[in-house]
């Protein structure tokens, strides 16, 4: 054994380059996500900028008539933005309270067994294709609503809001529940130890302590409602109109058009090539992208605060 040859501990150059090549390939895969974002921004900006060369951004953002394909053409995005806000507001009125209460039930009241059944069942709500939700709203929800509101139109903002609200419940409930579950049990014990009921523990300890997680879930859910496309296209119709806030019934019982629905309408029509209508599609898309992207960033930032709180 004494005269065994010295072990070869040198790096193998072939091995090294292969290791490096693999690393490079994986890196490119990860980089693709940044390229995707870049491609989205450039694609949207490219056509949006040529659009804004012809239609001033001010006219676009403050105009009150949206008529991209029919003469006289007009590219005021306000009707679409208000339409989107109507749906978002209506959906929020359902999803925010229901989602929060759901999260409280799951985190504070449900037994382990009930939770293990209920949680995945609620997640299913987010898994149903939105085109199916749109169909449900159109053929089942609206007729049901017409019993209560005889004047409701076939296409209306109310049924679209309800259905969008239902589909975003899991966004609120699952993120909020995560936040509530990360509230340390020691705080609950402190409260129970003072003679608090479960109601008091939930409302005075758990909810305040997870407030940034709840806020984050709210923002994300709203962003989701703003970007929701098929359900509102099918159920709320294609009537771009500036809503009259003094007449809530008129707002909700009639057809509106959201930004997303307007995009689908343009995309499905044959406005191809280099027409102004085609480019307006990208201007609306850019507006939608900027709004939702900012909201997602804010939500992420708020969420990172609660993650820090109980590290």
């Amino acid at each position, binding site marked *: 054994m004494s005269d065994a040859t010295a072990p070869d501990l040198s790096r193998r150059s072939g091995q090294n380059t292969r290791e490096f090549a693999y690393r490079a390939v994986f890196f490119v895969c990860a980089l693709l996500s940044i390229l995707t974002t870049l491609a989205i921004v450039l694609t949207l900006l490219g056509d949006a900028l040529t659009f804004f060369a012809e239609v001033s951004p001010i006219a676009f953002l403050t105009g009150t008539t949206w008529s991209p394909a029919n003469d006289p053409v007009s590219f005021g995005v306000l009707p679409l933005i208000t339409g989107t806000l109507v749906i978002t507001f209506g959906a929020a009125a359902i999803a925010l309270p229901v989602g929060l209460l759901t999260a409280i039930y799951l985190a504070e009241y449900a037994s382990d067994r009930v939770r293990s059944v209920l949680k995945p069942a609620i997640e299913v709500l987010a898994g149903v294709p939105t085109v199916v939700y749109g169909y449900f709203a159109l053929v089942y929800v609206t007729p049901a609503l017409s019993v209560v509101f005889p004047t409701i139109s076939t296409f209306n903002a109310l049924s679209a809001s309800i259905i969008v609200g239902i589909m975003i419940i899991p966004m609120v409930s699952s993120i909020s529940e995560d936040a509530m579950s990360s509230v340390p049990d020691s705080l609950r014990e*402190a409260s129970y130890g003072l*003679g608090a009921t479960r109601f008091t523990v939930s409302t005075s300890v758990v909810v305040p302590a997870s407030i940034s997680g709840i806020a984050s879930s709210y923002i994300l859910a709203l962003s989701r409602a703003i970007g929701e496309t098929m359900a509102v296209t099918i159920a709320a119709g294609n009537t771009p109109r500036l809503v009259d806030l003094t007449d809530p019934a008129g707002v909700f019982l009639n057809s509106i058009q959201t930004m997303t629905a307007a995009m689908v309408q343009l995309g499905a029509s044959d406005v191809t090539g280099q027409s102004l209508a085609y480019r307006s599609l990208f201007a609306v898309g850019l507006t939608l992208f900027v709004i939702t992207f900012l909201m997602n960033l804010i939500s992420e930032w708020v969420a990172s605060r609660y993650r820090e709180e109980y590290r």
Partner: protein
Amino acid sequence: MTQDMTTSDPDESDGTTASTSPDPGGFSEARTQTTQEGTSTAPTVVESRDLAVYYGDEQALQPTTMEIPEKQVTAIIGPSGCGKSTFLRSINRMNDLIDVARVEGELRFRGKNVYDEDVDPVALRRRIGMVFQKPNPFPKSIRENVAYGLNVQGKEVTDEAVETALRRAALWEEVEGKLDSSGLDLSGGQQQRLCIARAIAPDPEVILMDEPASALDPVATSQIEDLIEELARDYTVVIVTHNMQQAARISDKTAVFLTGGELVEFGETNRIFENPEHQRVEDYITGKFG
């Protein structure tokens, strides 16, 4: 270490506590039993009778019988995992919160078995406060922390009540000017005293403490120890500790639990430490095991 045990001195600082004065009839049952030494004259407030606790199939506490005297400090010592916390948490029924926990036997508070059907654990906990091992102030202001129990129990929240609780917890001087800053901004020792203030603000009769100083540095620990002796003037204190010196310093009575959840010896602290009856207890106290 010993205090006046026969007369229950009226509370100087808070008028609402007059009702803590014992009702002689309420513990007549407890009186019939003499404590192991037969020397204590303080009335019994909490009394366990063959109290056993299980977690699922695991028995964490062997049938335990013991009497805890009023307005004294009773220490519970023993190696870790021997059921000290389990016993303590069965006094105010915090074990109810653990799904798998099951209790047998009786735990009497002022003569009434708290595990009787008609006892509301929430009402019970309003008379038996608790301080935990790790300081757990709410992420709220100092004032809101102290006021929390008062709010929960529907009692009036006044600046005086908050101040009184903080003074009794020996924290007032340090936080006087910053009642609205977060309780989480305090040091560990201050946080624990804040938790004590929070526990005593609604004026319970008994305070349970589960290793309240184990997460603190020596200086903060000695502050808490002084405070506990002080609190025993007005409250019955039951404290779990695995620090024997601490038990010797501050308690009037000591219960020694050993492995398996068994109460091996209970009596006057002096006697337990100077002249334990059981060899196992002596071994434990002298550090031969555990």
